């Protein structure tokens, strides 16, 4: 406990409690109690570490009610690493037996048992193979490995199918870890059970090595962030592979004219939701916009809150509080509706799933799709 206080104390002391973080925090926006705000969490952690506050249920709940969207970190005038502090505090909560919350523990147990966070049977991980035109055979050049991820594997197979079809059309060869792929481990790492993630991470790294891949392609920003940032910390070794998000790959393929948008999308007005873990976390804001604007007949309109300032979709909160996650998603849908777009595009399976269900919940007249599905449609697949 003292370690974390030592590491963050001067950061914490720089928090002047101005409250600029409150306005952008998806959790505070719905709950409204100071403990749900980023500044509240910072002071609460400090209070606990100093011994001024008890480690009670409210404190534990609020430490887990953070989407990790990093909006507060960007907004903070003192540039406090709020999300890092919260994540390290979760590790302390696990050590003290107070974390993770039961729903997160169940999700982590799912990973241990079925190798996916959703608790679906592991042997159904490749059900996306059933999509028409999707083949998994590789020509043998497995320089690239496509790391599919849990959410695309089970809940939005259209993302996987579209990605594979696009790559086939571009004559871009790649390999798959396939049935041997396990969850990337992000839920364990973010909930403070990093130790449990070690075996998962080792397994995935071994499989990538066995395939001989030098690059790993992801369609999920969560997997992208985990493979990029966390794997090296956990294994203690520099990754022997480079991680590529599908956004960058599609952007490059278009630039090299390996993709041609042949289908004109008449009078389609599109708005783009920046996923937190590919936008704010990695600064990838323009690739998706360039792809969308390159599609003939498509008009891109921006939501008021975009790029660095984009509001979170709330997807990552669903395991902790489904109603909160839905409320945050519904708010984002309302922002999309203000643009009068008829299509909301994102580049993250978790955003896709949460925004899609939020649109249904809000009875909103807007379709939600993943960028890969849009691109596949535009090249006539």
């Amino acid at each position, binding site marked *: 406990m003292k370690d974390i206080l030592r590491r963050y104390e001067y950061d914490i002391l720089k928090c002047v409690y101005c*409250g600029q973080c409150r306005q952008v925090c998806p959790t505070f926006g719905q709950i409204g109690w100071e403990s749900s705000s980023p500044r509240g969490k910072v002071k609460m952690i400090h209070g606990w570490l100093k011994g*001024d506050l008890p480690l*009670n249920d409210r404190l534990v709940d609020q430490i887990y009610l953070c989407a990790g969207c990093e909006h507060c970190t960007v907004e903070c005038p003192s540039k406090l690493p709020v999300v890092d502090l919260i994540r390290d505090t979760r590790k302390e909560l696990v050590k003290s037996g107070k974390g993770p919350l039961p729903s997160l523990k169940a999700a982590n147990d799912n990973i241990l048992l079925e190798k996916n966070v959703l608790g679906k049977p592991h042997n159904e991980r490749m059900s996306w193979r059933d999509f028409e035109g999707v083949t998994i055979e590789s020509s043998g050049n497995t320089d690239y490995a496509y790391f599919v991820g849990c959410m695309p594997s089970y809940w939005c197979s259209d993302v996987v199918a579209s990605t594979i079809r696009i790559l086939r059309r571009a004559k871009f060869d790649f390999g798959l870890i396939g049935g041997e792929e396990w969850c990337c481990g992000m839920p364990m790492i973010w909930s403070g059970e990093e130790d449990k993630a070690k075996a998962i991470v080792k397994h995935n790294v071994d499989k990538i090595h066995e395939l001989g891949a030098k690059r790993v392609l992801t369609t999920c920003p969560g997997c992208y962030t985990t493979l990029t940032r966390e794997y090296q910390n956990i294994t203690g070794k520099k990754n022997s592979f480079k991680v590529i998000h599908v956004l960058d790959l599609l952007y490059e393929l278009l630039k090299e004219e390996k993709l041609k948008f042949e289908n004109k999308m008449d009078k389609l007005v599109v708005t783009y939701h920046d996923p937190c873990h590919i936008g704010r976390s990695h600064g990838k804001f323009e690739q998706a916009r360039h792809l969308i604007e390159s599609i003939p007949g498509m008009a891109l309109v921006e939501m008021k809150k975009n790029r660095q300032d984009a509001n979170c979709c709330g997807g990552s909160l669903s395991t902790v509080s489904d109603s909160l996650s839905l409320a945050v998603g519904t708010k984002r849908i309302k922002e999309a509706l203000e643009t009068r777009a008829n299509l909301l595009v994102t580049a993250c399976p978790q955003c896709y799933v949460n925004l899609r269900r939020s649109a249904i919940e809000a009875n909103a007249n807007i379709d939600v799709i993943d960028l890969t599905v849009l691109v596949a449609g535009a090249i006539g697949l």
Partner: protein
Amino acid sequence: MLEAEIVDELSRMVGDQNVSTDPIELYLYSMDVSVRFQHRPDIVVRPRSVEQISNIVKLANERGIPVTPRGAGSGVAGGAVPIRGGILVDLSAVNEILEVDLPNRCVTVQAGVVHGDLNEELEKHGFFFPLDPASSKMCTLGGFVSIGGGGVLTVKYGSVREYVLGLNVVLPTGEIVRTGGKTLKRANGYNLTQLFIGSEGTLGIIAELILKIVPLPESKAVVVAAFNELQEVARTAIKIFSKRIVPAAMELLDNSAIKAVNKYMREKALPDVDGILLVEVDGSKDEVKRQAQAVKEICLSEGSVQLDWSDDPEKQTILWKARSVVGAATASLAEKYSRIYEGEDITVPISRIVEAVEGVRNVSEKYGIQIITFGHIGDGNLHPALLIDKNNPEHWEILKEAVSEIHELALALDGTTSGEHGMGILRAEFMEREHGKVALNLMKKIKKIFDPKGIMNPGKLSLEEGET
């Protein structure tokens, strides 16, 4: 600790989910930006309507329980710190924009509406609430009016006192009083609206506000001029006014702020001069063009060694950047040093601004404390940022003396210890020096009439009997 029956009663009034006695919440509502003052309330209540606020206050008055109103808790003078415990009323959930009335050029809002959210809504109609505090993104309008706030645009548009047409206030007895209305003028006796502005929640809780709004200007231009001597900056500011130009904003970065910004924003270094003047003019396109040209000529004739300007909105944002990041820059200057909001709001007549800046520099030198100075030169308001290691008790002692000297400096220059942040607890000791004994005694009597039991935001503004 409150009796259980009072907690139950409050829960019945606003619902269980809007009441908390959890130690975590009590701790987090014990503070605002002023770090020196912290005190936990006995209970936090989050009402959703004016009626609920009224019921809470009525109960508190009956039982003699202190009540502290709080907006976003972004104040810097301890005004929302419940220094005597009791009930903390968090008004951030009473946050509806009730009416945008364009024909009458006003809006009716609830106290918890965030300043920036109002302007986001008004922008759709081509209007704005023309005050621009640095806390726009988070401060609530109720809190902003309660402290008598200002901002960057005060030089042209005035302070909040000129924009409040009417109020709905929950009095300490729980009664609701309506003051003013939608008309731009009224010659009908005592102006209670003005009495509540700046009263910092000591006379009641502002629950709803009628605010004057103005059309967004057609065009803007920004001129940024660097000067080798601080006196040249002040002379230029005064000359701009004497040429019958009233800029929308007129800001100053002194050398300490320039150095801080250059350390923070390495990609675009500001000239290492004694002072930088930033002037924004707004209005019709022709008027802006004329004014910007005149400002440029004055700056050059007064000795500006480097000048940049633009009437392009994107470039204006870049020109404003140095000023807008100065707060963040101070926080990042040194790893173990944090900014303390004390002595941070002195305001002097513009003709004495150089004496004020130099006085602050002397304090910095005398006490060996790092002070970054910037502010609204157009209305004489400086925001010195004092940096200390919060873990070092000696630094706190030195800070206290340095702050006291900065406040004395403002008073000696015929100024005030606070231009726009309020007195709260932090500057309460200066109330008599600011107003004189007679005026303060009058205020105490007014307070007694409104709040005979002394329940409303006690411990603020030195209003309690026997303090003078």
